[in-house]
């Protein structure tokens, strides 16, 4: 098996604006935890530490930062939403 896997990262709100795209394709080491993706984003997109309330969805279901990634996974970085 190849040492790296491909994952799609879905971006929303200010992340999408900073990236100029609604998703990024990243190559990461196999079994990288979901929570490690932030540090792998281009600097222009992440620009600093993640918000405390950042949540993650893996293939359209909520997941924890420790969930390991597999080839072809789609991860959404779910920034805090302000209802109202």
């Amino acid at each position: 098996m190849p040492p790296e896997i491909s994952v799609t990262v879905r971006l929303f709100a200010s992340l999408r604006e900073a990236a100029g795209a609604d998703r990024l394709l990243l190559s990461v080491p196999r079994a990288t935890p979901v929570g490690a993706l932030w540090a792998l984003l281009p600097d222009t997109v992440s620009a600093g530490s993640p918000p405390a309330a950042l949540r993650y969805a893996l293939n359209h279901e909520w997941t924890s930062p420790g969930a390991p990634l597999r080839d072809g996974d789609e991860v959404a970085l779910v920034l805090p939403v302000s209802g109202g």
Partner: protein
Amino acid sequence: MMIGLSAEPLDLGAVAAAVRDSEHGGLATFLGCIRREEAIREVIAIDYQAYEELTQRELVAVAEEAAARFGATVAAVHRIGRVEVSEPSVAVAASAPHRAAAFAACRYVIDELKVRAPIWKRMVYADGATEWMDGRDRVPDERPA
């Protein structure tokens, strides 16, 4: 089940019609509309962006919970895209055999939707600036026209 997102203006009549039931004597509706907030910083519109797949799942789950808890049939539609001040951004309807359950279910759906649906707001201010309300510290796009 009328549940989901819409890029078109909301039609409360259609949302209410979706929960009509000949056994349900109470039907409550709610519209959430854009506030101007002139005393704070005047808003002229809000641009909504959703994580559509997960929003749909969450809204369906909320509707099923409302059915189980209140015996209600519910509908909920949230706008995406730009919504002008005073225009509705979300419409909810709930019907139940009696009014108490209809009101309770309607309230339950809007309260849960606000917390659980991954839908972001980009404020468009009268002074020309825009701002994503997504919990990030920002410098960009705070640019008065």
